[in-house]
C-alpha cells in the first residue's frame, strides 16, 4: 500500500528539493576566463595581420673588389672568360677577342650587347645571350661546364638591377642553376 505525503511533508519536500541559486560570493570560486580568451584571440589576430612574414631567399656572392672593372684576368691565357658589364643603358658582354655584338655570336668592338627593354634591364635577353655564347662552337667545350663569370656594375645602377643580372646569369629558368653560379663582382668607376 503506497504511502502519501501530508501537506506539511510535501511543502518540506518542495523546499528541500529546490536547487539553491549561486550567491554572488560563490560565483567567484571559478575564474571567468572569457575576457582573457577574448583578449588572446584579438592579440593573436592582430599579430598575424601585422607581422609581414615574407618568403625570402638568398644569393651568395663573394666579396667584391673595390677596383675598376672586373677582377684579375684568367691565369691560363687560353681560358675563356666572359664578363658582363652592367651599365645604365643595358649590358655589355665581354668575350675572348672583344665584345659580343647584339646577335650574341659575333665578337667585335665594344657595343651594347643587350639593350634596355621598356626602360628596364633585360634579364631574359641576357640569359639568351649567354646561352648563345655558351653554345658558340669555339667556346662550347670550356663554357659548358664553366660556373664562374665576371660581373662589373656601374655604381649608380640600382640594386635591383644587380639582382636581375645575377638571376639572369645563374640559370635559364627559376631553380635550375644551370649557368654561371659563381659570379665575381666588381664595380665600374
Amino acid at each position, binding site marked *: 500500500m503506497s504511502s502519501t505525503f501530508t501537506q506539511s511533508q510535501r511543502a518540506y519536500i518542495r523546499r528541500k528539493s529546490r536547487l539553491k541559486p549561486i550567491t554572488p560570493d560563490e560565483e567567484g570560486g571559478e575564474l571567468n576566463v572569457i575576457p582573457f580568451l577574448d583578449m588572446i584571440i584579438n592579440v593573436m589576430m592582430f599579430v598575424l595581420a601585422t607581422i609581414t612574414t615574407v618568403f*625570402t631567399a638568398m644569393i651568395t656572392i663573394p666579396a667584391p673588389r673595390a677596383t675598376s672593372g672586373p677582377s684579375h684576368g684568367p691565369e691560363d691565357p687560353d681560358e675563356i672568360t666572359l664578363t658582363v658589364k652592367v651599365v645604365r643603358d643595358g649590358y655589355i658582354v665581354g668575350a675572348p677577342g672583344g665584345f659580343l655584338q647584339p646577335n650574341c655570336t659575333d665578337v667585335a668592338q665594344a657595343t651594347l650587347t643587350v639593350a634596355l627593354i621598356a626602360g628596364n634591364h633585360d634579364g631574359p635577353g641576357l640569359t639568351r645571350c649567354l646561352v648563345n655564347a655558351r653554345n658558340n662552337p669555339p667556346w662550347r667545350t670550356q663554357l659548358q661546364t664553366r660556373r664562374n663569370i665576371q660581373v662589373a656594375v656601374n655604381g649608380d645602377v640600382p640594386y635591383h638591377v644587380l639582382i636581375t643580372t645575377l638571376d639572369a646569369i645563374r640559370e635559364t629558368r627559376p631553380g635550375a642553376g644551370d649557368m654561371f653560379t659563381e659570379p665575381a663582382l666588381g664595380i665600374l668607376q
Partner: protein
Amino acid sequence: MAEPTPHATAGQIQREIWRRKNKNKHGEEITSLNIIAMMDMMTIILVFLLKTLSNSSANIPQSDDLRVPRSSSRVDPSGSLQVIVSRVSITVNGRAIGVYLRDGLVDPSQKRGGSAGFLINPLASEMRNQAEVARALAARTGQPFRGEVAIIAHRDIPLRTIYESLYTCAQNGFSNFQLLVLKGGGAAGS
C-alpha cells in the same frame, strides 16, 4: 471501513527529495563551458608565434624605405648577422650605427678616403665589434667563425652604396655575403 493511508516515513521523504533534485539536474541546460583548455592552447600558440616570428630571419620589415627586390633564387637564408641598407640609413641587426644616407649615398665625411673611398667608418667600427663577439662565441662553442653576413637592401639603392657596405664588411672579417631577396621574381626580377 477503509484503512487510513499510512504517512510517509522519513526515509521515503528523503528519497523523494533526492529524486526531485536529480530530476531537476537532468533538466538543466549547460550554462557555462569549461574553456580553460582552449585558453591554455591559445596562449601557448600566441607565445610561440611571437617568439618564432620575431627571431626569424624571414621576417623582413617592409616599408617605403625598405623594399627588397625579388629574385628567382630558391636558396633559403641561414641565420646570420643582418646589415640593412634602407633608403635613409644603414643598420646592423636592427641597431642604428649613425650612418645616414642621402639620395641613397653615404656622406663622404663618413668614409675613409672621402667620396672616392669605399670604407664606411661607423660601419667598420660596428663590424669590428661584431667580429670580436662572433669570434669569441665561436671559440667558446668550438664552432668555426664563418664570417657570414646577410645584406638586406632597398631595391633602388645605388650599387655604389651596396659595394661600400660589402667592402667594409669584408675588411672586418665578414666576407661570406648573402643577399636577402624576396622569393618569386622571374629572370627579369622586379
